[in-house]
């Protein structure tokens, strides 16, 4: 019973942190389950995918209802994230766990460095302020025009396809949502305003993770006894995090998170060596 409650609490902590920092819980759930509870890495990735879908569906529901997410663009890119997830999910059961651990540690370090460089602007504030410039040229009547939204026009579809496929592979291999790839991809490379990119990425995460979660499910890579308490914890944590985000000093939290990520990456690397 105590272990079940600890998993619930750990999932809640991952959900709060993830929600406050706009990362989703996946980055923390895999280390929590492998380092904290001794689960095999692939099982932890399977559970993490379930948690990622849950938080994504809840957030995407709100974003779609408020018309913040771009459904057409999201679904078009989902075609490629799902393809990447199909490849990643299949490869995950062939690759050596140590290699996946190494990739995970590399991703944690990348996220830690990105967050350390992000400065003191909270993600929520950035979402409101940092809007990509609108292309002044008249829009040609093509698919890109139809994928665009109010006040912006989508560009660089080739980069979008390439990046979305890569995000799908990463998501399936490491059990994360892949927002760390999709948001900069849509915002910086494709000209989508940050707020729309964040919401659309959140919506896409669900189908990306679902495409690989079914593969993990069939391979027996999802344990219901672990996934249940962890997913409930993450859902509760994310709900609390979204409500208290305006009261928390994000600079301190970001610093703490960078330290936690760095330490976790080191532990994952030690697992590879050990």
């Amino acid at each position, binding site marked *: *019973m105590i*272990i*079940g*409650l600890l998993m619930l609490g750990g999932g809640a902590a991952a959900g709060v942190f993830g929600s406050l920092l706009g990362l989703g819980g996946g980055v923390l759930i895999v280390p929590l389950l492998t380092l904290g*509870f*001794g*689960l095999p890495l692939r099982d932890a990735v399977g559970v993490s995918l*379930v948690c990622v*879908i*849950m938080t*994504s*569906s*809840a957030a*995407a*529901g*709100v*974003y*779609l*209802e*408020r*018309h913040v*997410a771009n*459904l*057409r663009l999201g*679904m*078009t890119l*989902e*075609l490629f994230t*799902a*393809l990447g*997830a*199909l490849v990643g*999910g*299949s490869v995950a059961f062939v690759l050596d766990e140590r290699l996946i651990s190494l990739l995970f540690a590399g991703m944690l370090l990348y996220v830690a460095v990105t967050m350390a460089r992000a400065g003191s602007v909270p993600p929520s504030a950035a979402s409101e302020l940092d809007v990509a410039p609108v292309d002044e040229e008249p829009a040609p009547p093509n*698919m890109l025009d*139809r994928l665009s939204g109010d006040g912006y026009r989508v560009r660089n579809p080739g980069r979008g396809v390439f990046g979305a496929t890569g995000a799908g592979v990463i998501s399936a291999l490491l059990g994360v949502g892949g927002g760390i790839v999709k948001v900069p991809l849509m915002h910086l490379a494709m000209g989508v305003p940050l707020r729309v990119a964040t919401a659309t990425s959140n919506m896409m995460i*669900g*189908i990306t*993770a*679902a*495409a*690989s*979660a*079914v*593969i993990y*499910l*069939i*391979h*027996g890579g*999802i*344990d*219901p*006894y*672990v*996934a*249940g*308490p962890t*997913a*409930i914890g993450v*859902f509760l944590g994310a709900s609390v995090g979204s409500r208290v985000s305006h009261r928390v000093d994000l600079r301190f939290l970001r610093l703490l998170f960078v330290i936690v990520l760095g330490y976790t990456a080191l532990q994952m690397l030690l697992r590879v060596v050990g």
Partner: protein
Amino acid sequence: MTTRRAIASFAAERQIGRLLILFTYVSVTLLVVGVLLLLAAGISPIDGGPPLDLSTLFSEVVAFGPAGFLWLGLLAVIVTPISRVVLAAIAFGRAGDWSMVWIAFAILAIIATGVATAAAGTV
């Protein structure tokens, strides 16, 4: 985008958003029941749960077994974003936006391929 398509897309987004929220709460409810039954039974999660068996799922739920509710909740979680794509395909089809319908079908085909290849690999 034509006005008709824009209006249809706007309405579809609201309906799909509501469906996602509803499905999420259904999933959470099933998982909460499963976790409470798990804790009440004194089962440690790290002992490992039973694999998914669709033939016994219903009887497990009727018998108030934790694994039944947990698997049902987990399946609901995974099905939620997939059902969003199905609903979007229907909405886009009604609006005559066939390119988006094909995209939705292609996404579903990729997921079906994943299921088929994974199932073939485990046989």
